[in-house]
């Protein structure tokens, strides 16, 4: 009887639910007889139960049940028939045993991991450096490689020459350049462990064993978990940001001055002219977003040319296609030559030397845009003071981002990460402004947008979001991005700002 005293509620409920066995039920009844107050409690529960079961239910009109059934059947009949067919199909073709299911799941997971790893690792800036035969890449870009700790760095094996034909992002003459770059990185940045890994990777596969198919495959990228060069160079994030930027700018200036030759001079001049030309585009034309929005939705041959005046008719070729690109090329070529003459330099400018847009089909990268040529004239100059990632000082920008309660190491780490992202953003900006190949410029432009999004995702800074929005509009106006991308990026910005609230 003691157990009933201790666990009365439990036994009472089990008794009410008829869940006690006969012996226990008899014992419990005996216990209740001996304890009238417990019996009264049982009666109260019984009344409750009885009353609940006799609950008033609504008076339903005649024919209600038939109506309800008919409504349900109608809704079910309106459902698509796919389930049955799919079930039969799945039963017939996808009824594997457990081992196969487990193996398939494992294979899928590994594939997803490998694919996602490629996305996460990202692309380093040096991939976009001008790869001119016989010339060094821009020193600013060499210095601006992101640190390994950010997980954004990767190194190419020095076999680009052999594999260039299989990689659409590589130029055929990139082999020598890639070799130089890899050697530099290996000598300066990679620790001994990575060197071993690299050597292993170079020597390991035996083409006889693996077969011809494997021999044809490009070597996989080696992930660089190596030392953080930038830490030594920029110990304090705030100061580091400025000194890095200054170094980048200084290096860019030195590069331009130190490297003699027509090509560099022409490139530099072309950049100036591009910037100047951009300024000459009337604001009213720039702001006429409706016109440009339409332009983004129609084929290039029908698109409005931002460089032409409102009354000017672009030239057409014999097929009726607009010829504004060549007109612009000639204009730039002529202006460049006359500028050199003014400076006392006798340089003949060849159109190909300034690479004014012979590249075709650049807008088909995403597979959804109409193919068409992009020229340097399509790329707006991005003034560093307007789009800088580090000016004003990062401390001011990231105030909104960090929770005041997060102090010490975590905050420092986040700030450092943020600062490094911003430095990389500035480097991208620099690279974009001096790049002279439309393909590179386009890629860099997109990288800048993505960098903006990464930074704003952390900072939730409204002023930066406004800058990013302006950049997006600029890209849209110049057909560098199209509406689906524009909307996606803009939505991301909205989400980031909403997260802040």
């Amino acid at each position, binding site marked *: 009887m003691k157990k009933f005293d201790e666990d009365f*509620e*439990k036994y009472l*409920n*089990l008794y*009410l*639910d008829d*869940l006690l066995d006969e012996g226990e039920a008899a014992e419990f009844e005996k216990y209740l007889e001996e304890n009238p107050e417990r019996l*009264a409690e049982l*009666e*109260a*529960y019984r*009344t*409750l*139960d009885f*009353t*609940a*079961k*006799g*609950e*008033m*239910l*609504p008076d*339903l009109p005649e024919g209600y*049940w038939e109506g*309800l*059934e008919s*409504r*349900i*059947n109608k*809704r*079910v*009949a309106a*459902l698509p*028939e796919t*389930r*049955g*067919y799919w*079930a*039969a199909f799945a039963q017939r073709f996808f009824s594997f045993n457990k081992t196969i299911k487990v193996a398939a799941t494992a294979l899928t997971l590994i594939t997803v991991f490998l694919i996602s790893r490629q996305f996460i690792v990202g692309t380093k800036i040096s991939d976009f450096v001008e790869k001119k035969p016989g010339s060094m890449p821009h020193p600013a870009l060499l210095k601006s490689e992101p640190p390994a700790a950010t997980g954004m760095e990767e190194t190419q094996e020095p076999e680009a020459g052999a594999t260039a034909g299989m990689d659409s992002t590589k130029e055929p003459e990139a082999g020598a350049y890639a070799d130089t770059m890899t050697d530099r990185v290996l000598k300066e940045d990679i620790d001994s462990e990575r060197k071993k890994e690299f050597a292993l990777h170079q020597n390991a596969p035996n083409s006889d064993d693996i077969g011809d198919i494997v021999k044809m495959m490009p070597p996989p990228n080696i992930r660089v978990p190596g030392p953080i060069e930038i830490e030594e160079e920029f110990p304090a994030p705030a100061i580091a940001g400025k000194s890095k930027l200054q170094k980048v700018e200084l290096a860019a200036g030195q590069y331009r001055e130190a490297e003699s030759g027509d090509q560099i001079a022409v490139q530099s001049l072309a950049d100036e002219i591009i910037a100047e030309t951009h300024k000459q585009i009337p604001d009213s034309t720039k702001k006429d977003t409706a016109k440009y929005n339409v332009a983004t939705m129609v084929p290039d041959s029908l698109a409005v040319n931002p460089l032409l005046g409102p009354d000017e008719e672009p030239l057409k070729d014999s097929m009726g296609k607009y010829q504004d690109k060549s007109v612009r090329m000639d204009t730039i070529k002529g202006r460049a030559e006359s500028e050199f003459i003014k400076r006392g330099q006798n340089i003949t400018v060849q159109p190909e030397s300034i690479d004014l847009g012979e590249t075709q089909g650049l807008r088909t990268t995403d597979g959804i845009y109409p193919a068409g040529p992009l020229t340097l004239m399509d790329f707006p100059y991005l003034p560093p003071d307007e789009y800088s990632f580090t000016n004003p000082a990062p401390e001011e920008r990231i105030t909104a981002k960090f929770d005041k309660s997060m102090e010490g190491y975590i905050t420092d780490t986040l700030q450092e990460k943020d600062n490094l992202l911003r430095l990389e953003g500035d480097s991208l900006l620099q690279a974009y402004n001096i790049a002279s190949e439309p393909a590179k410029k386009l890629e860099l432009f997109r990288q800048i947008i993505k960098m903006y999004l990464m930074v704003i995702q952390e900072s939730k800074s409204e002023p930066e979001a406004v800058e990013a929005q302006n950049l997006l509009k600029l890209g849209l106006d110049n057909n560098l991005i199209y509406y689906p991308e524009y909307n996606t990026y803009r939505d991301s910005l909205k989400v980031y700002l909403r997260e802040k609230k």
Partner: protein
Amino acid sequence: MTEQTKVQPGERRLVARAKKGDKEAFGELVNLYKKPVYYLAYRFVKDHDTADELTQESFVKAYQAFESFIEGKSFKTWIFAIVANLSINYLKKKKRETSLEDTLTDDILEDKKVSSNPHHQAVAHDLKKRLSAAVHNLSEEFKSVFILRTYEGLSYEEIAASLKIEVGTVMSRLFRARAKLKDELKDYLDEEV
């Protein structure tokens, strides 16, 4: 303590056919279970129109999710689980939208003073009303267990399977729900007893 609902062979055949996409067989199941499903929904929401809508929704969801139904198990338990979950979700959503619950409780307490009727029949009638309101005011987790056990007679195991909780949790929630109701209706129950 197990008292699983036995599945009739006829029902099993219907379920097998419905699972293959046979809408006619599913219609038969609707015919069999429309009333219990409606009443269960009504006990949760205390509103005819909502119960009607929830009943329809439950059968549609059941048809759509039939692939996940394990043959040999009780269709009744399964459809009850669907309607219980839909009803709970509905109540949660409603609670978020309006804070009528508190008002309702206040009204009940106010009415209680007025309805101290000496006549036994009147008390019993009043008790039904109060109990109905008190059940309605239980939290969703207590209410679902209480309704499935008291009104629908599901076993602890079936309730546990329906609500995806442990049997021990079912027992404890049921005990606490009953105790809560008893406390709420103490005056009436004393008078009744």
